[in-house]
């Protein structure tokens, strides 16, 4: 056990045995046998892993499986396995080409892209501003960004309905200032959707951006200026590359949920268009067509995974740490 022992009180240290006991590992300074180590890991990580297996992995596999079945007259599942649902998604329905579902997909992706671009345009300067505040104001600034996030999504969205209503003071103000013509309401419409989405997703963009801006090495920016870059070039070549991990992380965090978001576009856009979210709800709810609903889910998931994979490959090729 002990490798060194004092013989007597004051004598020299005599090394008795250099043999290391088997089954003992030292991790972060703590000695543990392998068995104890295993039990401890199982007790701490086990419940989480089990939860993920039962409530995420298995249902997900079930969804994938169901997506290859067909719907019976009463909403029950029928074999054989078929690709019919996916063909319908791509527009090849029983009555020839139908652009409904491809359009839903494109519309949802467009909504995600629109929200992401809005969040970048507003979030980049905002995160930059907060990161450059004196240290004692930074927490306050971040809190202000997060506060809307603490309010329930529906309440926030209804509040915008009232604020942007055709006879509301914001609408009248915009009309008086000549920003919109008198008969065009701010709500419902694209503007209201943009406001609502921005309100919902801005924190997801600002927080990762802020984290990467905090770490900017200003020496590198000064080096760029010293080498002849003006403000614009220094931003592009010295600031942006350093902020990029945050920009990518924020874009992923905004784009993915924004693509599936349908409450805000419904409530603020006038409920005129179908999006991925309400298409899925429709299939699992009123239509009772679980196989087709599952196919939509799987297709959306595949899109997300493909997007993340491309982004990861891109980041790896650039030699930067992968975004979460």
């Amino acid at each position, binding site marked *: 056990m002990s490798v060194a022992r004092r013989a007597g009180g004051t004598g020299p240290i005599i090394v008795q045995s250099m043999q290391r006991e088997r089954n003992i590992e030292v991790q972060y300074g703590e000695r543990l046998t392998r068995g104890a180590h295993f039990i401890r890991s199982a007790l701490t990580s086990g419940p989480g892993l089990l939860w993920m297996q039962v409530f995420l992995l298995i249902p997900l596999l079930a969804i994938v499986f169901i997506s290859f079945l067909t719907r019976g007259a009463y909403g029950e599942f029928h074999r054989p396995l078929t690709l019919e649902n996916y063909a319908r998604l791509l527009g090849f329905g029983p009555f020839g080409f139908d652009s409904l579902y491809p359009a839903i997909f494109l519309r949802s992706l467009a909504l995600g892209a629109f929200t992401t671009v809005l969040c970048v345009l507003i979030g980049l300067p905002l995160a930059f501003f907060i990161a450059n505040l004196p240290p004692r104001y930074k927490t306050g600034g971040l809190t202000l960004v997060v506060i809307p996030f603490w309010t329930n999504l529906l309440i926030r969205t209804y509040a915008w309905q009232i604020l942007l209503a055709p006879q509301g003071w914001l609408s009248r103000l915009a009309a008086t200032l000549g920003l919109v013509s008198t008969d065009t309401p701010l709500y419902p419409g694209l503007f209201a959707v943009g406001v609502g989405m921005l309100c919902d997703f801005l924190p997801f963009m600002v927080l990762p951006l802020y984290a990467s801006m905090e770490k900017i*090495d200003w*020496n*590198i920016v*000064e*080096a*760029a*200026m*010293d*080498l*002849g*870059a*003006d403000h614009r*070039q*220094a931003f592009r*070549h*010295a600031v942006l*590359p*350093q902020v990029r991990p945050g920009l990518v992380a924020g874009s992923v965090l905004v784009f993915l949920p924004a693509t599936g978001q349908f409450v805000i576009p419904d409530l603020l856009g006038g409920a005129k268009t179908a999006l991925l979210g309400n298409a899925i709800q429709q299939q699992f709810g009123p239509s009772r067509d679980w196989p087709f609903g599952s196919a939509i889910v799987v297709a959306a998931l595949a899109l997300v995974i493909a997007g993340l994979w491309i982004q990861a490959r891109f980041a790896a090729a*650039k*030699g*930067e740490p992968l975004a979460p």
Partner: protein
Amino acid sequence: MQVTKNSGTDAAATSEPKKADSSAIELESVTRRFGQVEALSCVSLCINRGEFFSLLGPSGCGKTTLLRIVAGLDLPDEGAVRIGGVNVHDVPAHRRPVNTVFQSYALFPHLVVFDNIAFGLRMKKVSSSAIAERVKRVMAVVEIASLADRKPSQLSGGQKQRVALARAIVNEPQVLLLDEPLGALDLKLRKQLQVELHQLQRRLGITFVYVTHDQDEALTMSDRIAIMNHGRIEQLGAPEELYERPRRRFVAQFLGSCNLLGGAVKSRDGSVVSVQTGVGVLKVDLGAQMPDAVQRGYLALAIRPEKVVLDPAGAGINCVRARIEATVYSGAETQYLLRCGEHPLKACLMNATAGRPGLRVGQEVGVYLPPDGLIPLED
């Protein structure tokens, strides 16, 4: 009227380049404050064209601030900066004809070595064939030709240093500003790069302004050194002048090691002054210079340890008795820590012969402080 106006501008035009011929950088009463602290207090300085000029001082003395003001990364609160005879007060950093080698290197982490070095030329819209050629040439000069495709994270400290240097000199600046460029390297590499930097400066003929807190570095490389303390230039001169004839206590102590002795002036005989110091009466020939302090009856003296002569039997003028308290052997030389009455003295002897001379701890020796080794100080 018109004629006189013309001649006036001509005169101005001809006088400007004349100034530019001799001086690369001129600072005139430059002051920079950070809150209550004056980082630079009314610094005036003239750096000659093609010179290797060092700013030497302890950390916080304002040397980096001075460099940043020249680079345009900071602005003076008062005073003027001229580069090549042109006042650059309104010229932003990216249009100044100077480049900087940063202490932390500040290489672009997302760019490979080649692109790092090409950055300045790309900003100036140099054609890509010219860029390729100039970058290759510079990479050969600093001996990193094989590293073109590496990222900065794949380089060692010395290699990063070379890339930072190449990235600056490829732009052929009028003045190269170096902010403690060797500070993060180990001693051996530092010594090697000191020699290389010095040779490079001679070869390129670019004016180097070199900030360092390492006195060896400044002494071995520079044509002239400005020693700074508390935002002021304490003394400016060639290395041997600063070392052999420091004018002030700070310079004497900062550059190398020295014994400080001081005391009342007992008598004056022409230029020779007798001073009652802590170790005894010392005679020193002040020559033409006569510090104001002598008028007040007090004179501070400094003597370098290697100028002190140990002589076991010594007696006579400027000779005092001291006891050896400790010896420190460091290879080429041995230091003797002496005590003369209450006053400590340091002496340093080259180990010219193998084995130690017969000087042992506890022994009494005669210490001769030669008059020409005694440096009168102004404060």
